[in-house]
C-alpha cells in the first residue's frame, strides 16, 4: 500500500513524536512537583507521629518542661532547646565576624593568587564529613578544654568551636556573593569623595550588602541548629540546663539521633514532637534567609 494519499494536507497527521511531546509535558509537571510533595510528606509524617505527644503532654509543658526522663515518662525539651541555642549562638559569635572579614578579604583585600587558594579551601570545608569535624574536635579540642576548664572537656565551648568552623563556609560564601553584587558605582562614588578603601567598605559596601549578610547569618544558624553527629561527639549529651560554657549539654538533634532507634510508645511520639519543633525553627530561619536574598538579587 505505497499509494496512500500523502498529499491530503487538510487532515491533521498524528505523529508519534507529538504524542510523546504531550505525554512528557505532563510527566515533567509531575517531576516538578516531587520536591514539594516530599516536603509535604515530611511535614505530615512528623506531625502525625508527634501529635499524640503534644496532646498527652501539652504543647507548653513539652516545650517548657525541664525534665526528660524516659523511664519516668517525663518529656520536657527545655534543656535541649537551651543546649541547641547556646551552641548555635556560641558558634555564630565566633564565625560571623570571622566570616564577614574573610569575605571582605576575598573580595577586596587578597591578591588574586591568595584568593585562588582560599576560596577553594573554604569550599572544601563544606565537603568534609561532619563526623570528621567531630573526631578532630574530640581529639584536639576536648582534651585542651579539659586542661583549662573544669569538667570532662565535653562542653558547649567545644561544640561551639566545632560548629563555628562548620558554618563558616556558609557565611563566607553568601556574604561574598552579596558584597560582589553591590554596584561598582557605589564604590567609585565613595572613592571619588576621598574615602580610604576601608571607609568605602565600612560605610558604603557593607551597608549595601546588609540584607545578604543577615541572610548568611540566618542560613548559617539554620545549619548550626540542624547539625547532629559532630555535636554528639563533643558535647557530652547530659540532659541538664547548662550553666557555663564548660558545661556539658545536649542538643535537640542529638536527642533524636541517640534515642530514636530504641524508642516506643509515648517516647517515640515525644521524639517526633521534638522533630516538629526543630522543623519549625529551621523553616522559619530558612524562609527568612531566602526572602532576604531574593529581595537583593532581583
Amino acid at each position: 500500500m505505497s499509494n496512500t494519499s500523502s498529499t491530503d494536507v487538510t487532515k491533521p497527521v498524528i505523529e508519534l513524536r507529538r504524542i510523546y511531546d504531550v505525554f512528557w509535558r505532563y510527566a515533567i509537571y509531575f517531576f516538578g512537583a516531587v520536591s514539594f510533595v516530599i516536603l509535604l510528606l515530611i511535614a505530615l509524617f512528623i506531625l502525625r507521629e508527634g501529635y499524640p505527644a503534644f496532646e498527652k503532654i501539652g504543647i507548653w509543658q513539652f516545650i517548657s518542661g525541664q525534665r526528660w526522663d524516659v523511664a519516668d515518662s517525663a518529656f520536657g525539651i527545655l534543656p535541649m532547646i537551651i543546649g541547641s541555642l547556646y551552641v548555635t549562638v556560641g558558634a555564630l559569635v565566633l564565625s560571623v565576624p570571622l566570616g564577614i572579614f574573610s569575605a571582605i578579604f576575598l573580595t577586596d583585600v587578597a591578591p588574586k593568587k591568595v584568593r585562588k587558594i582560599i576560596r577553594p579551601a573554604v569550599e572544601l570545608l563544606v565537603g568534609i564529613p561532619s563526623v570528621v569535624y567531630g573526631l578532630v574536635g574530640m581529639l584536639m579540642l576536648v582534651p585542651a578544654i579539659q586542661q583549662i576548664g573544669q569538667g570532662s572537656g565535653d562542653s558547649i565551648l567545644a561544640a561551639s568551636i566545632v560548629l563555628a568552623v562548620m558554618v563558616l563556609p556558609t557565611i563566607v560564601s553568601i556574604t561574598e556573593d552579596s558584597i560582589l553584587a553591590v554596584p561598582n558605582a557605589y564604590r567609585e562614588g565613595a572613592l571619588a569623595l576621598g574615602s580610604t578603601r576601608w571607609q568605602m567598605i565600612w560605610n558604603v559596601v557593607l551597608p549595601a550588602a546588609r540584607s545578604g549578610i543577615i541572610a548568611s547569618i540566618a542560613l548559617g544558624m539554620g545549619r548550626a541548629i540542624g547539625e547532629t553527629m559532630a555535636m554528639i561527639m563533643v558535647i557530652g549529651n547530659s540532659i541538664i540546663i547548662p550553666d557555663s560554657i564548660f558545661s556539658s549539654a545536649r542538643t535537640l538533634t542529638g536527642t533524636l539521633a541517640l534515642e530514636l532507634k530504641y524508642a516506643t510508645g509515648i517516647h517515640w511520639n515525644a521524639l517526633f514532637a521534638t522533630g516538629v519543633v526543630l522543623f519549625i525553627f529551621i523553616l522559619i530561619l530558612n524562609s527568612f534567609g531566602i526572602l532576604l536574598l531574593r529581595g537583593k538579587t532581583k
Partner: protein
Amino acid sequence: MKISPKFTHNVAWGVCWAAGLLSLAFLFIIIGYVFVNGIGSITWEFLTTNPKGGLKGEGGILSALVGTLYLIGITLLIAVPLGVGAAIYMAEYARNNWFTKLVRFGVESLAGIPSIVFGLFGFALFVTALGFNFSIMSGALTLACLCLPVIIRTCEEAMKAVPRTYREASYGLGATKWQTITHVILPAAIPGIITSIILTVGRVVEETACLYVTMGGSSNMPTSIWSSARTLSLHLYYLAMETTAINKALATGVILIIIIIIINFATRWLSDRYIAMSGGGRMSNGN
C-alpha cells in the same frame, strides 16, 4: 589625638588578612591532624578486611566501603532521574504561576532541612510504615530526598545556560519541544548533569545523621539492598564513639578526606570546562 583614616584602613586590612588566613588554617589543621595521625594505620589489610566489631574495633573497612558503594548506586538511581526531570520543568516548562512558586518553595525548603529530620522521616516512612527495616534501601530513599535539591539546582543552571539560539534552531527545524529537550538541551547540559551526580556522591559519602537512623549500621558485608549496612562515615562514628580504636577512626577519616578532595577537584574541573563551553557567561557566581 584623632585616629587617622589611613591608620584605621591599615588595621582593618590587617584584620582581614588575619581572618582569611585563619579560615585557611582551619582547613590545614583539620586535614593535617587527620592525615598525620591516621595515615600510619592504613594498610592493605585495613582496606580488605571487614570490621570485626567489639570494643577494640578490630578489623578493617571493607564492608563499610562496599556499603558506601551500594548506597551511592541506589541513591543515584532514585535521585538523578527525579532531579533531572524536575530541573527540566524549572528550566523549560516553568511559567510564572502558582505551581512554579510551589515547586521553587519545595526545592528551597528541602535544601535547608537538616539531615536528622530527613532521618526522622525516613525512619517513620521507609523503615517502619513501608517495612523496609534498617536497610540500604531505606537509607538510599532517605538520602535521595535529601540530595534532590542539589541535583535540581545544578541541572537547572546547566540547562538555563544552554544558549537560546540552540532552541530556536531546533524549533526551526520542526522539532517538538520534547525532541528539543532530549536531542539538544540535555546533551548540551551533560557537564552540569555530571557535576550534579558527583555532588550527590559527595553528599552520600559525607552524610551520617540521616543514615544513622535508617541504615542500621551492621558491620557485616551487605548481601543485598535489603541488608543493614554502614557507610565509611558511619563506621568512623561507631569507631570513635563505641570502640577504643581511635587510630582506625582517624584512618577512616583519611580515606573520607581523600574521597572528598577528589570529588572537589572533579567538580571544579568540570565546571571550568563547562564555563568555557557556554562562552563564559555563567550566572550565580556574581562576577
